[in-house]
């Protein structure tokens, strides 16, 4: 399974802050983004950063592994 997390303004545009996606061999970050942004286009308007396993990732071609944690995040506004 892939664990998907949404935060801040992004989370308000999806039904749940957290969801699970089935993992399949050869899966890339791009596949998850494509599927979820089709399902929740409004949420993805707020996405500025994506992290895989708590590290920011810019390359959508990143191969995923079973058990990965992906986070979709709006611009940070802490501090």
């Amino acid at each position, binding site marked *: 399974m892939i664990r998907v997390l949404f935060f801040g303004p992004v989370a*308000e545009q999806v039904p749940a802050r957290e969801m699970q996606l089935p993992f399949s061999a050869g899966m890339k970050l791009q596949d998850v983004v494509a599927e979820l942004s089709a399902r929740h286009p409004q949420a993805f308007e707020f996405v500025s950063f994506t992290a895989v396993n708590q590290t920011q990732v810019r390359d959508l071609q990143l191969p995923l592994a079973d058990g990965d944690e992906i*986070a979709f995040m709006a*611009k940070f*506004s*802490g*501090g």
Partner: protein
Amino acid sequence: MSEPVRIQEEDFSQEAEIAELKASSKRIGGIATFVGCARDFSEGRAVSEISFEAYGSMALAEMRKLRDEAIEKFALLEARIVHRVATVTAGDNIVFIAAAAEHRAAAFDACRWMIDELKQRVPIWKKEITPLGESWVTPHP
């Protein structure tokens, strides 16, 4: 001793943080600190409360990296970063940053660098609750 990098709901004590910082070395000549507080006005709108949300595990990892980088980059003797994730009202503390160095220039540079970088790199979000409703804060460039 408390951890030098923390995310917590409860308030922090500057006195306690600085005491722990100072206990780390007798070579400290200057300590620069920054405390971010909740204001009752933001862009002309009255704000009653501010609530924070964090991607906790990543935020903590980023804050630790930030501290390590600051210590290395500015040759600090010690540094601390504490961020509250809670609902706060005007005057309440939000974030505490401290940099201790042999001389003041490095302490100031490092303290400022850490808060600037924290705002860029640490996954925490701020929502302002006003009498007219709630809104997420959009950071300025």
